[in-house]
């Protein structure tokens, strides 16, 4: 049953929500750097976030991303079953088994929303593991909880409250219920104190800290609608035919998606270059979300508007729902700065990308261009764009 669950999960993420897998990766930049690790550890829930971001970097491959998501949710289901069996000994394991799917189903539903980060399932998984290693006797369990709650809170975030809840199970097993209640209340107060104290040392509001700094995106609805994410995915693949078909099935609501459709029609020779430009140049109206800005950065570069592409890429970096940087758009900024001749700035971004797993080799190639600008002219992509850029008549976009 668990294996079947895993297969269903994999198929869902790989075939139904593939665009979202790719979008998650696009909104982060995982760096193999001690500073990056320490910056993550400097806020509650930082370890869960670090692990989640480590995993999400592999989402550049949709299949790998789908597999990781499926394994994560399957592990949560399996651990849930183990915990249920351990803590509800009076109930038959076979009866408990269906209930073990509930946390994974809930998380599955939640992470379909881009406003819920992968940090949440990772934090749940690691908390479940901690709960599993708690001693099976009340007093040692209490002592362990006293240690694990502050540490777990800092590493995994407020989901550690499950550890507090776990202590209530002794109400069933112990005759001294008042003492158990007092112990549970003490653990609750301990966690509340951790939350309050942490709110004075990190630059986040108490509300954000209480709901988990990176469980839910700080800036909600910034990533973009699923429609935008889907069009962006197709744009990445340059599937012009599919984009047109999709728009014919249902006209897109987002202005950015409409622009992508026009670009697709241009490439399919259904409209002229002049028609393509219509309504394209209204950045304030079109850069409404991260995904919209990502699309428009691509669209502008396709059209040879390098500065506009750079501007849109910046908007993505700024509208990241949890203030993460974007590896994809940082790469775009490298490209635009190479084209505009701002080589020092390009090198600044290249240095960062060289600390990543998947952008590293590309960044090294770009370093060659930034340090030898004459090579840019010979590059089929950047050379021609540089030529276009240098001939562009300077006008404003209103």
């Amino acid at each position, binding site marked *: 049953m668990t294996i079947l669950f895993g297969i269903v999960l994999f198929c869902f993420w790989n075939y139904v929500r593939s665009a979202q897998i790719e979008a998650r990766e696009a909104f982060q930049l995982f760096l193999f750097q001690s500073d990056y690790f320490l910056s993550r550890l400097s806020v509650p829930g930082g370890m869960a976030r670090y692990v989640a971001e480590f995993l999400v970097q592999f989402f550049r491959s949709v299949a790998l991303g789908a597999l990781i998501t499926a394994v994560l949710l399957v592990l949560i289901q399996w651990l849930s079953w183990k915990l249920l069996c351990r803590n509800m000994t009076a109930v038959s394991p076979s009866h408990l088994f269906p209930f073990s799917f509930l946390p994974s189903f809930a998380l599955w539903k939640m992470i379909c929303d881009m406003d819920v980060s992968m940090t949440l399932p990772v934090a749940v998984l690691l908390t479940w593991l901690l709960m599993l290693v708690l001693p099976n006797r009340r007093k040692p369990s209490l002592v362990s909880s006293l240690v694990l709650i502050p540490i777990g809170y800092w590493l995994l975030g407020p989901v550690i409250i499950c550890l507090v809840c776990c202590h209530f199970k002794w109400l069933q097993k112990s005759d001294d219920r008042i003492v158990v209640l007092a112990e549970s209340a003490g653990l609750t107060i301990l966690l509340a104190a951790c939350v309050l104290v942490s709110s004075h040392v990190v630059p986040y509001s108490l509300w954000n800290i209480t709901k988990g700094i990176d469980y839910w995106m700080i800036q909600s609805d910034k990533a973009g609608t699923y429609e935008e994410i889907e069009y962006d995915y197709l744009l990445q693949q340059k599937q012009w035919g599919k984009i047109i078909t999709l728009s014919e099935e249902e006209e897109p609501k987002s202005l950015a998606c409409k622009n992508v459709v026009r670009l697709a029609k241009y490439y399919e020779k259904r409209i002229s270059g002049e028609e393509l430009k219509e309504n394209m140049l209204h950045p304030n109206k079109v850069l409404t979300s991260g995904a919209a800005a990502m699309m428009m950065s691509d669209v502008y570069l396709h059209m040879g508007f390098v500065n506009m592409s750079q501007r849109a890429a910046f908007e993505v970096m700024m509208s990241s729902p949890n203030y993460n940087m974007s590896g994809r758009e940082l790469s775009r900024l490298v490209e635009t700065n190479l084209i505009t001749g*701002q080589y*020092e700035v390009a090198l600044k971004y290249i240095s960062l990308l060289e600390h990543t797993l998947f952008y590293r080799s590309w960044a090294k190639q770009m370093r060659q261009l930034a340090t030898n600008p004459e090579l840019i002219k010979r590059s089929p992509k950047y050379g021609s764009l540089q030529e276009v850029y240098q001939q562009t008549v300077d006008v404003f976009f209103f």
Partner: protein
Amino acid sequence: MKQLINHISIVLTVVFCLVMLEGCRHQVEHATRVHQVPAIYPDYVGVTIPAGIAPLDFNFVGGDVDLLDVTVRGSKGGELHVQGEWADLNIEAWQQLTQQNVGGELLFTVCVEHDDQWIQYDDFKVYVSKLPLEDYGLTYRRIPPGYEVGGANIGIYQRDLHSFDETAILKVSAVYGHCINCHTANRTDPSTLTMQFRGEGGGTLVQRNGKQHWLNTRTDSTKAAGSYAYWHPSGRYCAYAVNSVHQNFHVGTEKRIEAYHRFSDLILLDTQTNQLVLSPLLQTEDQEIFPAFSPDGKYLYYSTSKPCNLPAEYEKVKCSICRIAFDEKTGTFGNEVDTLVNTAATGKSYTLVRPSYDGRWLMFCVSDHSNFPVFQNDADLWLMDLKTGEMRELKEVNSRQTESFHNWSSNSGWFVFSSKRENGEYAQLYLSSIDDKGRVTKPFLLPQRNPKKYYGELFDSYNVPDFTKTPVSLDVHEVHRQVFDGKRQQVEVR
């Protein structure tokens, strides 16, 4: 006895560790002399620093390096020696060395090891000024360059100038959905502070002695809430520009962003009565912007430009520097405006007037056009001697890129400014000193530990820097509560 053995074992362990550490050091031997100063980042060669400043850590950028060996000798005594990947100077030892050499020089000897070969470069000097820098540190905003729509996690920070410690005063992550800007203390004293919050439920924060007051400074008689601010020395009044700022992006080469204001007036807030003092001379068809009080509080300096069709005629925005008398006792402005520097004479735009607190100098930005110089590549700093009225370009600190957002230390012996000289995109903070004859020293980049890495990986531009006498204290929880509570005391026009 047992205790004695313990003590001896601790001492022996420490000695052993020190010997081992010393053994790890590479002795500079048979170094080849190169007759040039080392290529270092930041360029600290020949700069003048105040005693007690954070260590001038630097990286060697003249090629591949396995090990850097740096010896610093004071002309009045003291020596410091470090080896490592970069010049990582010990804070306490550095502080002691600079204090010991006030008015003297520090001689840096830099040797570089690569492939078991040592190279010794020519020594260079750093001068320790007699002018003290008495302030605790700097405050500034860090903001990614070049965005408009998104909600960046910008923040207002403070930095201890005597160490590398930087702490956030307030970040957008604590008040998400809002833009925070224009933090202004009264002559570097953070006990009197104002700050603006834009976005839904935005407002003006006035903090006096730790107590926050949240105001709505927009009225029926004024077009917007207050933004760019400057305190009257008394701490009672605060002048604000009220305007509507926009950005447009160029598509062609050379320029990228043009910031402009659709309108701009000046208002004065009486923070005792929460009343606005308006003057028809400061609310004209022209754009009045960037107010600054004279140190005696008798004048309000500002920039003003003629109205034009914006953004189309953005190149016609050219500011003059003016001043208007102010009577603190009655809280009223004078009836006439003096023009100190007239754009009509030169065709340049003069903005961001900042008088030194000793009343001697007036520092401002000069660019070809615009009343928002931070996006103008040609923006430079200029200085006017208020004794003689003479003004000159500060060639000692200017570069081919933007210089702007300058402010004075509390004793007016030092100034901080932002400069994009490194790459034209990211503004960094530089400090420089000025003596009573107006001699300005070579500026130095705000020191950071491992600066090449720090600045190389920093994704933010620095802006609105100012000195702060003491650390800024702001109750972020109260700010969060007030921002989302949305209750603002409505100011009234007097």
